[in-house]
């Protein structure tokens, strides 16, 4: 439909805004310019989403422009025309994610209007975030791998610009560099995947009939790749087999793991956490979920590559467990938020890996909005309490009512009512292999166990965050007027409310019984599984209960006016809550602290040591770069040249004096 061409405007409007903002002299006007254009692009995205939702079963709409193209003459190597195209593809998936990401960007920018007022990089934040939006939205809308690669790298660049906002502090600059380097590794992986798929499937695509309005069947485009994968499994693609699929899948999975900050790549996200709160919000909400999105786009490859999916599921679940455990033990609210986001995405990866295409995407989709909500909330809290330490906050419920309400809502969503744990578990229980059949019991079992632990720890994390911050009274510390604590100004509250609403809506849409209309004509619905629901509720209960028992403001009778002390005592003695807590939950916490110490000591130091070793090698090279060795090289070169010439002359008979 022609209206779908409006999708070009979704990524281009923020770009326009960024460019126009250079022309405005007043900082604030420039910022508002960017915000307005992001709003416009969100509107277009919303309209498109509505249109698409009414034609959910229609085929995807694609519109392309050729970036560059050439026809390599070597038929032996390149059987296909090398045509790099950029464009848009509108289907349910891209429409919904484009809307969500545009909305998140809009919220964060609106939030930053107030939050970053008076900061050094105010103006730069806005045009850089608009560029980031171009990258992320463009990636979501991209019809082929080449376009995805461009946008993916563009997102990396925008993120670098954002994280390096606080350049005055050299540790911020260092963080920015580390973010960039880690993400570049992911970019390289994606580039490899693109090249590999082109080399493997180019020949196949040249056999396909060109779609309407195009000269050739673009070997990079996603549907060509899915067809190619299918016929590869039938062995009808020359030079490509299960092994090629496996390599491709692994490369894509690595790229996705890096992008969605799974363990141990979550370093880049926790580095980004050092930057300003809006930057962290954009990184966590609009950049990290793109990893899952990529896997969704190339899902056929993963589905038909042998043994890639279970591995992906296990990796996702384990990293969810680890990050959640890390989050449970941290005191720094930013790190806790990062861990919450990452473990959420880990659940999504696990769902994808267990063949739950729609559940995984549902989790990714909701995580876009939930992460926005969470991080804006903690941004407000940090602003109110002027500290990152959750044990220096407290008493938010009486004092900071609005914000703590939003935090509570997030906690409820995150600890299981957001259905992420339910969908992950249901996928694990059904364990339907998209290639046919089911995954083997050990795989499903392992993933399930990991998921249960992850869900429990996630609930524990959310509850802990909520209780520690909201409950009790404001912690008194020197140099901080604890009685002045109050909700921040409306400019910071409204975005939070909007994010809350959006998150709730997104979750409600996902309630079983409704079809996943967003996920297009792919009607793969995992039926409502009671077991999964029960287990999810159980984990919720465990997590929250433990959180209550461990972190609720202690047995101050005043804390619970609605319950008589004796009743409480009776309850506790009756249920042996103390005993349960001590005996059952302590080991878990011990493990959690172990993991977090592992994270601090091993993972961080691993990254450090990589840098160290590069530096060391550089030192070696520097010592080798002395002029003497250079002289040796030059001399050796001369000798080699002369010897070569002599050899050829000897061989061609020019070396002896020719007496006529």
């Amino acid at each position: 439909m022609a209206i779908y061409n409006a999708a070009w405007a979704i990524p281009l409007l923020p770009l326009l805004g960024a460019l126009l903002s250079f022309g405005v002299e007043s900082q604030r006007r420039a910022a508002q310019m960017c915000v307005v254009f992001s709003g416009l692009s969100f509107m277009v995205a919303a309209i498109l989403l509505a249109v698409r939702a009414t034609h959910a079963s229609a085929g995807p709409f694609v519109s392309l422009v050729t970036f560059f193209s050439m026809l390599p003459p070597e038929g032996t190597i390149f059987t296909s025309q090398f045509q790099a195209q950029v464009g848009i593809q509108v289907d349910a998936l891209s429409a919904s994610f484009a809307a969500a990401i545009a909305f998140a960007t809009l919220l964060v920018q609106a939030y930053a209007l107030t939050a970053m007022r008076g900061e050094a990089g105010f103006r730069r934040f806005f045009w850089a975030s608009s560029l980031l939006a171009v990258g992320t939205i463009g990636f979501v809308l991209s019809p082929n791998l080449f376009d995805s690669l461009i946008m993916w790298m563009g997102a990396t660049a925008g993120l670098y610009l954002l994280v390096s906002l606080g350049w005055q502090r050299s540790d911020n600059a260092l963080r920015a560099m580390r973010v960039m380097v880690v993400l570049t590794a992911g970019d390289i992986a994606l580039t490899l995947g693109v090249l590999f798929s082109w080399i493997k499937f180019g020949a196949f695509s040249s056999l396909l009939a060109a779609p309407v309005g195009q000269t050739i069947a673009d070997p990079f485009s996603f549907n060509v790749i899915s067809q190619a994968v299918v016929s590869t499994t039938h062995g009808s693609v020359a030079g490509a087999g299960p092994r090629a699929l496996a390599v491709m899948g692994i490369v894509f999975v690595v790229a996705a793991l890096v992008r969605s900050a799974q363990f141990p790549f979550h370093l880049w996200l926790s580095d980004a956490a050092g930057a300003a709160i809006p930057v962290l919000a954009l990184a966590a909400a609009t950049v990290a979920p793109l990893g899952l999105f990529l896997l969704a786009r190339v899902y056929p490859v993963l589905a038909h590559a042998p043994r890639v999916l279970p591995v992906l599921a296990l990796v996702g679940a384990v990293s969810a467990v680890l990050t959640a455990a890390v989050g449970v033990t941290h005191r720094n609210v930013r790190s806790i938020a990062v861990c919450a986001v990452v473990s959420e995405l880990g659940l999504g990866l696990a769902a994808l890996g267990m063949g739950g295409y729609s559940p995984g995407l549902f989790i990714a989709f909701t995580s876009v909005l939930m992460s926005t909500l969470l991080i804006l909330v903690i941004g407000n809290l940090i602003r109110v309490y002027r500290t990152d330490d959750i044990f220096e906050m407290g008493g938010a419920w009486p004092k900071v009512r609005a914000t703590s309400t939003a935090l509570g809502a997030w906690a409820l969503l995150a600890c299981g009512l957001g259905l992420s744990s339910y969908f992950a578990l249901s996928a694990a229980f059904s364990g339907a292999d998209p290639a046919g059949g089911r995954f083997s019991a050990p795989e499903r079992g392992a993933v399930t166990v990991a998921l249960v632990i992850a869900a429990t720890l996630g609930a524990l994390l959310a509850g802990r965050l909520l209780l520690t911050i909201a409950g009790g009274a404001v912690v008194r510390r020197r140099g901080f007027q604890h009685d002045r604590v109050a909700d921040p100004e409306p400019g910071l509250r409204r975005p939070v409310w909007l994010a809350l609403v959006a998150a709730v809506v997104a979750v409600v849409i996902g309630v079983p019984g409704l079809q996943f209309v967003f996920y297009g004509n792919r009607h793969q619905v995992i039926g409502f599984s009671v077991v999964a629901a029960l287990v999810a509720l159980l984990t919720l209960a465990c997590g929250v209960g433990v959180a209550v028992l461990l972190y609720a403001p202690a047995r101050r009778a005043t804390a619970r006016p609605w319950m008589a002390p004796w009743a409480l005592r009776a309850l506790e003695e009756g249920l042996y809550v103390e005993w349960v807590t001590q005996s059952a939950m302590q080991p878990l916490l011990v493990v959690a602290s172990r993991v977090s110490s592992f994270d601090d000591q091993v993972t961080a130091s691993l990254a450090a040591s990589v840098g160290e070793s590069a530096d060391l090698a550089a030192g070696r090279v520097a010592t080798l770069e002395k002029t003497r060795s250079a002289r040796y090289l030059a001399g050796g070169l001369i000798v080699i040249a002369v010897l070569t010439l002599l050899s050829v002359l000897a061989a061609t008979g020019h070396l002896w004096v020719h007496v006529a």
Partner: protein
Amino acid sequence: MSVILSAIVWTPTLFAVIALFLPERDEEERGRVRTIAVVGAGISFLVTTLFAVLGQIVLAAGGGLAGAYQENHAWFWNFLFRAYYDLTADGMTLPLLVVTTTVFGCAIFHSWKIHERVRLYVILVLLLETAVNGVLCSADFVLFAVFWGLLLVPMYLLIRVWGGPGARRASAWFAGFHTLSFVMIVATVAIIIVAAGNSSSAMTADLKTFSVAAETAGFWLSFAAFGIAMAIFPLHTWMVEAQSKASPGVAAILSGTMLMLGAYGMMRISLVVFPSAAHYYSFAITGLAVVGAFWGSIGAVRQDELRRFIAYMNVAQMSMVLLAIGAQTSVALVGAILLLAAHGFASAMLTLVSGAVEERTRTTSIRAMGGLVAQAPRLAGFWLVAAFSVIGFPALAGFTADFMVFAGSFPAHRIATVLVMASVIITTGGLLWVANRVFFGPPRDQFVRVPDVSFLDLTVLIPLVGAVLLFGIRAGAIVPVISNGVLEITTRIASG
């Protein structure tokens, strides 16, 4: 028979001769000299761009190489081979001509920062431009060698006279290495024409087939000769010295055009004339490329001198070109030409920016700098643009180049390609690390008075940024042109 190529090649010399007779006693007269030089370089630049654009349209329309932009006069024939004054500009040459004329224009604009012996400076730069354009355009081996030799003395003097402390040694390194590479080229030409028994020194003539030994020796001789000029891994020391000691404008010419010439010659002669040897030894070439990529990118990390750092970045970039040369697929070679153009612009930018930084902070040590964004945000912006282009980010010239180089090399040498791609991560780290150390970090109070980019810097840098963006966004327009030119090489390799 058009004279347009001769105009591109000889206009700078003409204006150099004019400048030769201008006095330079006071600032006004110096200004006149500079203006004359700018006019000369500008004419050459305009002719090139118009002509390159025209050529783009014609060639991309399928005109191909045959008879396109050729000037062919017999030079001398009373000898055992006939030599021609044969200038040809095909798709391989055109983009590089745009790069060279742009960079030389910037270098001459940069002469406003030079206050002693301006006339000599502009004359030498203009002569050098003639030499470089001549090498790019010449389609006759003897003519090629002659233009190549014309590089020697002007570059030597440019490095030595206006260089900082230690320029003497650097220029000696340059002279030694480049004279060596020059005589190797002469020996190669002797092998090509005489030993093989060809009766014409035109590149377009179909050469007789060499004996295996002659092919081997010719290939390795030319490879070493152009490798020196290209500053590939074992032969890069002269470039590091010169790059770090010469004055910024000269260093920009050096890393913007000299290295490009080496790579161009390697494609034109080592690949076209000795295709089977090039194919046979492609593994060795890619091995060199891998080593060089890591050597350059890792070696850059430790450098404390800004321009030594850039020099090692050049080594890494040239190793990527070398990877493409080793792969010898058309996609890779098109990417290599694009990469040469991108690298020409980007490294010229990096060099000029670093020159501006050194001029402002009065130090070359990275350690001594820091926090310059506070005073010179635009300068930092230019640095970041160039750095992103080197890293290969979309919408900048580097992206398409890197992608095509990798895409073309991957099928030929998978492991090597993956390794070189891995080295890109280190390059990224190095570039951003330097950006951190130089521009970011807490502002220092000894740099409080540092000014941001001057009008002169903008006149020099903005065209480069424009070119980087143009090559990055409109790559689709230039790729068919280049592939027209590259077809010759690939067909020869496929046949030989």
